[in-house]
């Protein structure tokens, strides 16, 4: 029992041996299975190495990353790889082997070669891209026409993911009040399970593809290391060949994952993806509103055109009428002028003729007067000479008359006395005869007069037609005239209904 040492002494010995033999830094290829970051800022990761084929752990060690180193490494990761250091990544780490009497063996990680991590990811990514390119699938999903309105959405995410709630929140609270219908198809969003579950959900959505316009894959946060699943060939192919447009919002900042590349559209964050979908909807609505505006403008333009046409026509009409009126007026003026000229000429001509006629008449009259005067003078002369002769002759005759008278008057007186006596006898006889003849004639005349008196005719039953107390005949009577029929005793009023020619 004399040969023993204390645990502390043993630990010290081990410590000194290790410090002696492992006093260099080593670049170790390892996988950080679990980071185990503490509030103090120090991390105590579980470091492992797995068999590439069997995936079994073939080495395991405790790691320590002091707060200072941790901050430095994280900053580098974010700068170079666009994400933080996370569980489950393979890294090339700069380590020192440490032994502590209390805490035991551990590997202190001082630095990490990001180029190696980058290279690993990039290798996988490039390989996938190359394969898809060879199959002509890189742009396959992009070739599908994007729906006018992405309103029915199949979401591949997980309910607890911030990305999911961000995305759904943006859609639900859009200022345009658009309504979206979505269904969540839950899937693991990072690590090895991601490929399997996302592919599975895509298959399910494919069966119901008529009920959706688009598929979105959203996840929140997470670094590019966790995103390596999205460079997986089978997942990228499933997305590229999907019959509906697939949109991604899986959160990254540097290199696109292959899934992002083959997706119809990829947004940096789920929130951005939500806005993209709203923008697409707004785009459609704006097209509708533009069409509306266009129609309104076209109608206004057409209306204006018609108004203009009408105005032009009215103007032309007015102008034509005015010019025609002017033409008529000037024609009229011309006609009046011509007429006046002609009339004046005629009047002048006529007055000249008239003066000539008057002159002719005057001359003829004067000559006729002179002729008559001469005749009268001649008559006067001949009368004077002739009357003397006649007086002489008559004087001679008168001288003879008393002789003849004496002789003839006696016999003539006797004869006439005899005749007078005869006539004296005849007068009373003739007188009587004549008187009775005259009486008879008078009676006859009286009868005729009586028979033809109007009273007599009326008495016989005839009537007289009078209008306005004037006798009318069939020549001056008209239809619808009111007339008076005057009989012997009565007078009647009648209206001419019809006049017909016999």
């Amino acid at each position, binding site marked *: 029992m004399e040969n023993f040492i204390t645990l502390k002494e043993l630990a010290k010995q081990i410590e000194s041996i290790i410090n002696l033999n492992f006093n260099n830094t080593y670049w170790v290829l390892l996988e950080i299975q679990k980071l185990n970051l503490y509030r103090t800022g120090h991390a105590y990761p579980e470091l492992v190495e797995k068999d590439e084929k069997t995936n079994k752990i073939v080495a395991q060690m405790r790691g320590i990353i002091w707060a200072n180193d941790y901050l430095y490494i994280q900053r580098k990761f974010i700068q170079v790889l666009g994400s933080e250091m996370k569980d489950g990544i393979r890294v090339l780490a700069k380590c020192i082997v440490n032994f502590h009497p209390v805490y035991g063996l551990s590997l202190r990680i001082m630095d990490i070669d990001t180029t190696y991590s980058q290279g690993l990811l990039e290798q996988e990514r490039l390989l996938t891209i190359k394969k898809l390119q060879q199959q002509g699938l890189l742009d396959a999903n992009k070739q599908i026409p994007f729906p006018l309105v992405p309103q029915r959405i199949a979401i591949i995410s997980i309910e607890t993911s911030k990305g999911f709630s961000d995305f759904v929140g943006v859609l639900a609270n859009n200022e345009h009040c658009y*309504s979206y219908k979505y269904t969540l198809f839950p899937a693991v969003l990072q690590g090895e399970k991601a490929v399997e579950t996302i592919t599975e959900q895509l298959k399910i959505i494919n069966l119901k593809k008529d009920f959706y316009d688009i598929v979105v894959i959203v996840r929140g946060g997470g670094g590019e290391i966790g995103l390596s699943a999205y460079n997986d060939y089978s997942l990228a192919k499933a997305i590229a060949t999907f019959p509906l447009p697939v949109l991604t919002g899986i959160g990254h900042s540097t290199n696109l994952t292959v899934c992002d590349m083959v997706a119809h559209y990829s947004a940096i964050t789920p929130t951005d993806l939500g806005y993209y979908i709203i923008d697409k909807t707004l785009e*459609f609505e704006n097209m509708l509103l533009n*069409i509306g505006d266009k129609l309104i403008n076209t109608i206004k333009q057409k209306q204006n055109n018609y108004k203009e046409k009408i105005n032009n026509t009215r103007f032309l009409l007015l102008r034509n009428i005015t010019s025609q009126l002017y033409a008529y007026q000037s024609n009229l003026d011309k006609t009046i002028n011509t007429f006046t000229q002609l009339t004046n000429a005629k009047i002048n001509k006529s007055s000249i003729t008239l003066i000539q006629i008057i002159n002719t008449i005057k001359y003829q009259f004067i000559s006729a007067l002179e002729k008559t005067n001469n005749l009268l003078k001649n008559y006067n002369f001949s009368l004077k000479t002739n009357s003397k002769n006649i007086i002489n002759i008559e004087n001679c005759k008168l001288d003879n008359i008393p002789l003849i008278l004496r002789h003839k008057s006696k016999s003539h007186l006797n004869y006439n006395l005899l005749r007078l006596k005869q006539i004296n006898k005849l007068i009373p006889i003739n007188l009587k005869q004549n008187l009775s003849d005259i009486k008879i004639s008078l009676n006859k005349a009286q009868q005729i007069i009586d028979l033809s008196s109007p009273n007599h005719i009326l008495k016989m039953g005839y009537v007289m037609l009078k209008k306005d107390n004037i006798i009318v005949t069939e020549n001056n009577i008209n239809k619808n005239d009111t007339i008076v029929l005057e009989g012997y005793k009565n007078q009647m009023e009648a209206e001419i209904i019809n006049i017909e020619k016999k």
Partner: protein
Amino acid sequence: MNNEELNLPTSYEQAFNELQQIVTEIERGDITIDLLLPKVQRAAQLIKFCRDKLRNTEDEVNKIIKQLEDDNCDDM
């Protein structure tokens, strides 16, 4: 009136194609001012249909109609 009576399309694509056709016809200018009115009315109807559908007003209305119909059936 329901969608069938108004002869409304079943999808945005149908509605939009018809709208574009109307716009083309009108812009080409071979429509007289008399025929313009029914075309524009149809366009307005289509635009309203799409905008309602964007906000799901249509669905809401249909729900209400369905509710009313159900209520009527209950009464009978």
